[in-house]
């Protein structure tokens, strides 16, 4: 291909589409087929298509106007029951969708039905590697290294490395240092909101609203979520602390009593009452779907199942550890209390967990 001097090599006789074709040719594109869809202008079919496209644009305009009117007129906010508040979102979506659909369909119909048929072929000659160019660029790059003289000057090389390495650490330091938080001081992994509870200084189990719980308030075969009776005890600040307080049927309680010693849980029940950590030992969801008939607790996140009558041992699903049992008792005033924190870590497993 010859080089093109600005404006010098254009045939002055070239007009219209010849110029387009020539321009494409210079870009490595050959327009091999180019034919108008309607060689005879103004046929019935062509006018029909024009009307269709025009109506799509008009539909878009009408829908856009409707959108603005709805946006201004309809009331915002919520009010219970069936009312005009409920219409805002669907109508906005509908009118916005129609607006955009109208524009989109109009443009695509225009392109497909009215644009000339075209087949253009572009060459990929620029994607074939050029050995000479490679040699020249390679030599230039080698020359850069040569100019630096890094090979001949070992002192500079080592000094630069020694000088720049700490800069990299410097860049990482504030990010890592700023975020870093020790999980062991304070030891949040092994303690919950019940930390500090002892026989002499027990912590009450309370409801969501902070009110203490009497054993008889849990129906037989029923359950209740309990939190540590400390300030903010039921808030997400003590996300690990919640317990499921269950009152077993008499024979189930007997079964559990027999099973307690096998897992070191002796003396942690209060009569028929037992309190298990509500936090699943698998992924930390509340394992709170209580199947009263089968005495199972099911975690809805990954379907681990725990058998209440056997120390909440996992019997199905991905969980590997039993739900920790909260040692409970009933205090002098007749309220359920925890006489110790959970004796093992609550929630999902981790590396340092024994």
């Amino acid at each position, binding site marked *: 291909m010859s080089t093109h001097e600005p404006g010098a090599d254009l045939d002055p006789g070239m007009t219209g589409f010849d110029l387009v074709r020539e321009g*494409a040719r210079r870009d490595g*594109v050959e327009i091999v087929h180019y034919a108008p869809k309607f060689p005879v202008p103004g046929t019935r079919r062509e006018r029909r298509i024009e009307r269709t496209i025009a109506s799509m644009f008009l539909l878009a305009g009408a829908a856009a106007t409707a959108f603005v009117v709805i946006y201004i007129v309809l009331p915002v*906010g919520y009010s219970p029951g069936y009312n005009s508040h409920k219409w805002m979102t669907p109508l906005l979506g509908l009118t916005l969708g129609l607006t955009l659909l109208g524009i989109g369909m109009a443009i*695509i119909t225009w392109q497909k039905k009215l644009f000339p048929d075209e087949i253009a072929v572009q060459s*990929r000659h620029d994607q074939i590697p050029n050995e000479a160019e490679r040699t020249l660029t390679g030599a230039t790059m080698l020359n850069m290294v040569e100019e630096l003289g890094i090979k001949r000057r070992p002192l500079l090389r080592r000094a630069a490395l020694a000088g720049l390495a700490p800069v990299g650490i410097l860049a990482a330091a504030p990010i890592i240092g700023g*975020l870093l938080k020790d999980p062991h001081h304070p030891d949040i992994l092994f303690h919950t909101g019940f930390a500090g509870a002892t026989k002499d200084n027990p912590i009450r189990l309370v409801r969501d609203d902070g009110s203490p719980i009497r054993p008889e308030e849990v129906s037989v075969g029923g359950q209740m979520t309990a939190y540590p009776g400390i300030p903010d005890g039921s808030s997400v600040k003590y996300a690990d602390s919640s317990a499921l307080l269950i009152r077993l049927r008499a024979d189930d309680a007997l079964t559990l009593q027999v099973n307690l010693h096998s897992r070191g849980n002796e003396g942690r029940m209060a009569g028929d009452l037992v309190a298990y950590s509500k936090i699943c030992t698998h*992924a930390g969801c509340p394992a709170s779907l209580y199947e009263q008939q089968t005495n199972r607790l099911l975690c809805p996140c990954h379907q681990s199942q725990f058998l209440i009558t056997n120390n909440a041992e996992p019997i199905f699903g991905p969980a590997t550890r039993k739900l920790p049992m909260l040692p409970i008792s009933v205090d002098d005033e007749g309220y359920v209390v925890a006489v110790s924190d959970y004796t093992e870590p609550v929630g999902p497993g981790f590396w340092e967990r024994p």
Partner: protein
Amino acid sequence: MKRRKVDVAALPAATARQIDDRFQVATPLRRMFNKVFPDHWSFLLGEIALYSFIVLLLTGTFIALFFDPSAKEVEYSGSYTPLKGVVMSQAYNTALNISFDVRGGLVMRQMHHWAALLFMAAIIVHMFRVFFTGAFRKPREANWIVGVSLFWLGFLEGFCGYGLPDDALSGTGLRIASAITLSIPVVGTWVTTSLFGGEFPGDVILDRMYIAHVLLVPAIILGLITVHMALLVKQKHTQWPGPGRTNHNVVGVRMFPGFAAKGGGFFMIVFSVIAFLGGLFQINPIWLFGPYKASVVSAASQPDWYVMFLDGSTRLMPAWELRWHMFGHGYTLPPILWPTVVLPGILTVLPLFYPFIEARFTRDKTAHHLLQRPRDVPTRSALGAMAITFYMVLFLSGGNDVIADKFNISLNATTWFGRIGILVLPPLAYYVTHRICLGLQQHDREVLVHGIETGILRRSVDGRFYEVHQPLAAADDHGHAELDYAGWVVPKKMNRVGALMPSVRGFFRPIEQPPGQPTEAPVSPAPDREEIGTGTRQR
């Protein structure tokens, strides 16, 4: 004073001249206008992802104007009466306000969510297209890697967005995320407390996810999309084989006006579909879930669909935990480590390197610009089907509680189905796909040798019946009319070779007179048959 008249007709040309005087853009601009794009429906799947991303940026900016990611506790006083007076985080409070008290806020929020789901779906389907047609082969390995990275960044971006409203579902999702980081060997607890600024949930995680969701991750995604597009322009689009199409050219239409008009129109249609979805189909009704409480969860709590496969893998994982004693202390590798840390690690690395792995096995070092039909590469197609089956088993297992509930099946049975299915079904899919590919290849060759089955039965003079076949090429001196396979669709019905009447135009009545109906089927039979095997494919 006499005013100089402005020649309006000459204005565009004069402006263009002034601009080119300064920037010399005539050549590069024309090169861009004239860039040729090949045309096939499968090439617009990636466009859907791009357009959804634009919608995400637009709607996301609107939402960000009204959203405050603070974990500070406030009492709800908005117009949604069922939650009036409930103590909640400022994040959940503002998310509710966007849904009820900002004009058009809910439609924007729902469009944002739908666009995110569509973004991920389009990425995956686009990856299928690229994988099964071999578009990732040399020289496009780098763009494949960028694409895989975009999938995982979209995944991360979506997860952060899902966690931001601080409703019961997003809090549960975050709780599981913290369990996942906790399970990482050696550094897990440090990573978790560092991310959450202490114990879960703490009060910094929402702010951190917010900055990741609105700045860090979108900026990286935007940068990678730019690289993705730049490489596409530089390397030019792949094309299907066909008449006049070679490894050294691109056959199609020029970018302007034809391709650009189609692309622009298609953007509007994608946008419109998202608007319909956002307005008419409720998604993530956070007001029904309530604020996050660590002790509250409901059944059927599923993540967004593109996270479900990891939820599924977690559900299927047997209760296997490694525990041992070392230096007087016990250590644990929890079961959640394998399906949520190790598996995604494999699912990242394996696809990233797939182009190189395949090239090594096939010893293929040449550049490819022509696509392959899936049937012509049975091994790759079978591997792809195997991967999709693996994914689908995990995906369905992510909703096994809903399946068990709706179809009245035992929940544990669905888990066992997944556990066995994940081992049995992918190899089965491999085998079946491989056989289907070979069968399709064989049929293509049969049609090329014998012609199209016309469905016309003839009886010869000696009483035998045979089906008339229409050969695709003129017979040579020996009476054979055999064609070579060209890597593209072989016509298998008579109307594909123009042997049927042209369709009649018009909806209620014809607007053109149809040409005269042929009186006899236009076939030219060649009755001899021979056995056809699977052809060898060209590389």
